[in-house]
């Protein structure tokens, strides 16, 4: 092979890919996608606004399951079920939450027609505690949660 031909071959092998147009595309696409990216995915929990009188009338005849959230315990009450209290050390007591979830599961299994639960909170109950109890109720098979205050001051 002649020297001239070898040099020509080397030039061919060392030729770079023309990646600038691709880079330009990436530089435009990445900021656009970064701006529209959703890093925190939101969900919602649907519920009826307070003030329905019909629900209260029905409650007298049905199970009327209620979970009371107090500063030191969860208390489950209802017509025809054993009232139970699950003491908790603080608002992030996972043990008490598990016990509550297990009992709600038992109640939901024994009363398959009932899908409703009243969550009765103190004025000082934190929002995340209420969401936690709503989650446990929904997972136990009680998706229709309604909120109620323990000391309503109109």
């Amino acid at each position, binding site marked *: 092979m002649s020297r001239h031909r070898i040099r020509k071959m080397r030039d061919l092998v060392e030729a770079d890919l023309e*990646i600038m147009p691709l880079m330009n595309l990436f530089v435009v696409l990445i900021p656009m996608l970064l701006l529209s990216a959703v890093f925190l995915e939101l969900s919602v929990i649907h519920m009826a606004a307070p003030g329905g009188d019909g629900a209260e009338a029905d409650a007298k005849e049905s199970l009327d399951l209620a979970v009371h959230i107090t500063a030191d315990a969860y208390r489950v009450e209802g017509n025809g079920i054993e009232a139970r209290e699950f003491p908790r050390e603080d608002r992030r007591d996972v043990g008490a939450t598990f016990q509550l979830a297990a009992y709600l599961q038992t109640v939901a299994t024994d009363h398959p027609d009932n899908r409703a639960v009243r969550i009765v909170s103190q004025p000082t109950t934190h929002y995340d505690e209420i969401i936690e109890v709503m989650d446990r109720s929904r997972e136990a098979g009680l998706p229709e949660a309604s909120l109620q205050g323990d000391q309503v*001051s109109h």
Partner: protein
Amino acid sequence: MRRTGRHRRVKPAVALKMTSMMDILVVLLLFLVKSFVADEQMSPSAGVQLPESTAKEHPEDSVVIAITETSILVGEDWVADLSAVMASDEMRIEKLARELETIRAQKEDLARIQGVDVQLGLVTIQGDREIEFAVLQRVMYTVGAEGWDEISLAVIRTT
């Protein structure tokens, strides 16, 4: 000694190594394309740390009421101070009610122009995880009293 042009070193042409950067960009691009959602998403309001939940329902287009640790906002607009709301014995939050009345009037006007029945739709409450139930109760009471009968609570989805 003076250097002549013959002895001056010729700088070699430096070619940028683009391969590694291209690799990063391709991975980043794929990740972003995967997480891209064409629908307009609801985003948490500034100053609100939403609670986490296992709820799976997607948010819908709605009136958003944000409750931070210090104030109540409708959309992006400040409506009331939380301290003032809690200082009052009234369950109804007057300033929030007025803001909701304005929104309601706008929806009614729009429905009249379009010749359809007015539909108030949903109210989504974005409450900070640290707010107390007394605040939430007042907000929900006001929303219900203003004629909205569907409320959803926004949360951050966990797996």
